[in-house]
């Protein structure tokens, strides 16, 4: 399969890239690892006239400790993230999710920025970034802005990202909850995408659970935080009874997806199972 004719450029600075995507607007697509975009271009489901490759921009791949958060460059690959020690200690669910994406080859070249911009409902990053209360930093030639993950994912392949904007980095706050976090997924056996993915984080340093965050991907068209499970756990202890009771309401009131891999009833019951597994991994 061969994509349509394209023009390709690889800017050497962020400023140059912002000008490129600013000038070309909807006539271009940003290219990072290409592991979502190239396959859809081969199928001709995407037909951009121009590709602007952002992987030559210095610094965009960096993972750094910014004091009260860890900053992950948009072009950091899933493998870079899986292998980062600071990320592992600040938010183990982030490392774990990275190591569960696709296969070695995909993790070597697919990037976190590309994954969240693509916003596949079955991708792993959305639930993890929601549960981490992460911020997504974007830049255009007219300025920069930062959006919480909860305001970034808007629907099936839809995000708050606007034409002309490049995601530059993602901030993962250092918090007691993120340091005590976990991710579990029910992987579709061929693609490894999540039929159901559940990310959990909770502060368990006091007498009872606080700052509880439970988020799902794969379950509905838009990844979401599950307020029902969160409030059931908040203020209680972390034990088999409290986990079972809370997971009983998993994905209640949510429009659950259905496809040839899993019906909505099956997905909903798997949401409870994987939330339970994720919560049992907390300490």
């Amino acid at each position, binding site marked *: *399969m*061969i*994509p*349509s*004719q*394209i*023009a*390709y450029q*690889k800017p050497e600075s962020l400023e140059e890239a912002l000008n490129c995507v600013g000038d070309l607007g909807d006539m271009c697509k940003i*290219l990072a690892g*290409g*592991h979502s975009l*190239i*396959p859809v*271009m*081969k199928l001709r489901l995407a037909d951009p006239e121009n*590709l602007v*490759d952002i*992987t030559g921009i210095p610094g965009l791949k960096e993972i750094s400790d910014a004091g009260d958060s860890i900053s992950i460059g948009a072009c950091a690959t899933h*493998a870079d993230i899986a292998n980062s020690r600071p990320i592992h200690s600040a938010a183990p669910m982030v490392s774990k999710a990275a190591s569960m994406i*696709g*296969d*070695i*080859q*995909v993790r*070597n*070249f697919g990037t976190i920025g590309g994954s969240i911009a693509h916003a596949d409902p079955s991708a792993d990053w959305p639930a993890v970034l929601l549960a981490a209360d992460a911020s997504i930093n974007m830049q255009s030639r007219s300025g920069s802005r930062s959006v919480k993950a909860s305001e970034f994912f808007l629907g099936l392949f839809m995000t708050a990202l606007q034409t002309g904007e490049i995601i530059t980095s993602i901030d993962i706050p250092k918090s007691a909850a993120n340091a005590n976090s976990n991710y579990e997924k029910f992987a579709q056996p*061929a*693609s*490894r995408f999540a039929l159901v993915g559940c990310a959990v984080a909770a502060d368990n340093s006091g007498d009872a659970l606080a700052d509880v965050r439970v988020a799902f991907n794969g379950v509905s068209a838009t990844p979401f935080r599950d307020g029902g499970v969160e409030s059931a756990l908040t203020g209680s202890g972390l034990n088999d009874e409290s986990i079972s009771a809370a997971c009983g309401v998993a994905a209640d009131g949510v429009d659950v997806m259905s496809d040839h891999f899993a019906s909505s009833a099956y997905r909903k019951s798997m949401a409870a199972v994987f939330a339970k597994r994720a919560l049992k991994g907390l300490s």
Partner: protein
Amino acid sequence: MKTNVKITVNGTVYEREIEPRMLLVYFLREELHLTGTHIGCDTSSCGACTVHLDGKALKSCSMLAVQANGMSVTTIEGMANGEMHPLQKGFHEEHGLQCGFCTPGMIMTAADLLASNPNPTEHEIRESLEGNLCRCTGYHNIVKSIQHAAKEMQS
């Protein structure tokens, strides 16, 4: 609208004028006639097209050749160095191939695994092959072949 690329493949620098839409796997097979890299599915699923880009395993059907401009590619043809690579020997000794179609990709993925984890468990080997399919389903011997190579590379 063609563009110039300069890509090092198995240690040799190649300069070519290509269409930007050309996939890396076609660049290797059709421009350079390195047909050891196979196309099994063309949908990023089977791993038969796996090569190394700057030392890391990549499905070459999922990347444009222009993205590899200025970089270094290793294909199965670049693995033997006078004598067979330990992984090639392992596949030979342990009967790791039947039709052989998946073998180049299996070897390139296994080489990435052994570079970061020289002494993998059987489970780790099986997990690392998640992105590689063998239609002859010879996984059992493929795992043994990789274990054979790991042992040889350590001694």
